[in-house]
């Protein structure tokens, strides 16, 4: 496969995954601010949302106040924010358009329809109901893209790069949430705060659609260290760092098998997965959750560079 084609496929998948993540942040945050005033954490919920997107500095340079409207504009629409939902969909579409031959027509139509609809029907001044529909629509687009990939793509290198793009972006997103909220996630038996913290924790779970999953896995009330466990080490949880790396290792192995060649990516992804599997929550908290997550984000980033070197720029 052409290196450029792999590059476009990989980034299409990454940006669609990112669009989904941004939509979830916006969703969780809208929910948090509709809490009763007595839990008045509402005012900093918007700051938390911006921090979760990783665009705090950029946000400050674009707006002079932080509220529902500016945050919504930033996350959903602002062309000056490279990770805004509309930018993500546009970049995903541009990448897909350059390599239409490598995607199935079903995948292309999902992306192209999304882009056409976005151009035609989105407005900055949506009310809450409309923004809720918009968020649901964005999530639906990503799900349709994934579904189309799963159902229609040949299981060859193009498919593997699609999966790798999605998994590496998803790992980055989960890690970012943990990085922003690490101060809320405390080791066993250490609790601070009250109802507000509870809402913040459940918000983390909502951001990754894991509240129900949490109850199924742990069958007990929401505890911060278990949230950390779910998002970092739990192999059943599709957004956990461990799950993402299982997917990455699997697809890098398939590529290596197809090409008859191992390389940097197989080594890096394998090492990170080994590290995750060897960890338990005690050791993670001992190292320090913040340090652990920061270290992970760095390794995940290095893997991205490795992909570029090994496959995308040859």
């Amino acid at each position, binding site marked *: *496969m*052409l*290196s*450029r*084609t*792999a590059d476009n496929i990989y980034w299409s998948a990454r940006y669609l995954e990112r669009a989904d993540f941004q939509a979830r942040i916006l969703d969780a945050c809208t929910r948090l601010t509709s809490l009763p005033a007595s839990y008045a954490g509402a005012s900093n919920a918007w700051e938390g949302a911006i921090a979760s997107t990783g665009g705090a500095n950029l946000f400050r340079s674009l707006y002079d106040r932080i509220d529902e409207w500016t945050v919504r504009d930033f996350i959903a629409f602002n062309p000056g924010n490279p990770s805004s939902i509309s930018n993500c969909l546009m970049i995903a579409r*541009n990448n897909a*358009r*350059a*390599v*239409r*031959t490598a995607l199935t*027509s079903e995948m*292309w*139509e999902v992306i*192209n*329809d999304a882009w*056409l609809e976005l151009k035609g029907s989105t407005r900055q001044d949506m009310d809450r109901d409309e923004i809720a529909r918009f968020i649901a629509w964005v999530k639906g687009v990503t799900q349709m893209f994934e579904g189309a990939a799963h159902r229609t793509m040949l299981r060859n*290198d193009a498919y593997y790069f699609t999966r790798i793009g999605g998994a590496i972006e998803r790992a980055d997103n989960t890690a970012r949430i943990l990085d922003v909220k690490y101060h809320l996630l405390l080791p066993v038996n250490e609790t601070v705060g009250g109802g507000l913290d509870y809402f913040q924790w459940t918000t983390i779970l909502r951001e990754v659609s894991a509240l129900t999953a949490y109850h199924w896995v742990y069958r007990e009330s929401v505890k911060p260290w278990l949230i950390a466990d779910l998002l970092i080490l739990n192999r059943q949880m599709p957004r956990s760092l461990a799950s993402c790396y299982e997917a990455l290792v699997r697809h890098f192995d398939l*590529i290596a098998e197809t*090409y008859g*060649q191992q390389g940097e990516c197989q080594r890096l992804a394998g090492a990170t997965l080994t590290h995750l599997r060897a960890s338990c929550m005690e050791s993670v908290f001992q190292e320090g959750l913040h340090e652990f997550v920061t270290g992970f984000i760095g390794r995940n980033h290095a893997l991205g560079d490795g992909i570029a070197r090994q*496959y*995308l720029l*040859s």
Partner: protein
Amino acid sequence: MAMTAFDEMYGLPGDDLHTRAPYDELRRWLAATPPEQFAIRRSQAELFFRRIGITFSVYGEAEAGERIIPFDIIPRVLTGDEWAVLDRGLRQRVTALNAFLADVYGAGECIRAGIVPAELIYSNPAYLPKMAGRTVPHNLYVHIAGIDIVRVGEDAFYVLEDNARTPSGVSYMLENREAMMRLFPELFSCHRIAPVEVYPEALLATLQSVAPAGAPACPTIALLTPGPYNSAFYEHSFLADKLGVELVEGRDLIVRDDTVYMRTTEGPRRVDVIYRRIDDDFLDPLAFRPDSVLGVPGLMDAYLAGNVTLTNAVGTGIADDKAIYSYMPEIVRFFTGEEALLKNVPTWRCREPEALAYVLDNLSELVVKEVNGSGGYGMLVGPCATQGEIDQFRKKLRRSPEGFIAQPTLALSTCPTFVASGVAPRHVDLRPFVLSGTDGIRVVPGGLTRVALKEGSLVVNSSQGGGTKDTWVLEN
């Protein structure tokens, strides 16, 4: 401008009672189908084209972004007998074009024999001295030709121009058929329409046949595009997909030791045949325009070393030249020993003083074209032009007469077409595609019918507001 034109459905002008036989069923269908039904189908057609993303960009219209070429749902129909005549004529013409190009860059016999004036070749900007005396793989130049044909009467077909560089439009031929089959399956059960879907297969076989001598039995083929910002990018990606070959940009190719490779996720892979949709000038910054970022440094060296086949060959633009076109009857006779089966439109070469004088005196009745122009840019349609436009063109003509030819304004045939006010006759042309490989010539029965949507307009180019129709060749 009131012009009486032959109508594809009704025949002679003013004879609406009579329908030409190949259109019998269509006319019944048009009369029997409720208008609302057509409105629904037309919007479905528009949606179909938009969804598959079959768009083009118009140069100089930044605002327009991606547009779709208007598609008209009333097909244009040719009988099997009409097609048989065209088919023979097209094969003969493309055979002559290939022999002419091999001769122009080789022995030069047609020039010595006085068939074409030497200066028209050697001082022509489309003539590439770099190619002189060089042999190209299998001595084939025009592997893919688009020959523009117009009709002015029941049996009167003319070649309007030869497109021997990188003719486009074949994706519309294929997608228009696809759209019609989806929208009006009932029409396909009451007509025997020759399939055009075999085109990609025919193209692939042609490209495989012209691989260089040392290439493997299943050569590696790539389609070279200028990229997503080119107006025909949709077609490039569409064809690469149908052919099952890589769609490459210049930056995907590298040349080492006069051999072309593409950059892949598994490392460099050798390329044997490049179906290039980039103009000669941009192919190789080391050989042609040094500022080209679309091309591949060293590509010409690999080509001239015989290690890669480029389709079409480099230098075919000379056969596109509209002054050369005017010599085609003589060229066909010289190289095939036969009279040309397809007629040329009578042409005044403005480089000749007597012709120029005539053209200047009759500008308001003639069509004047740049010899190197294409896409309908830079032409004057005298009967439709204002006095100001004519005066301006007169100045251009006087300044560089050798850059122009003129032709009588032909009454291009019309075909019923949906317009704002209902169904009305609009002028059409036809571009069939002719493939030349080492294993012979292939012509897919059909082509692209372009239609000038503006009332009275004779300019069918999509860049000038033209649309397209499905083209049916009925099987006998």
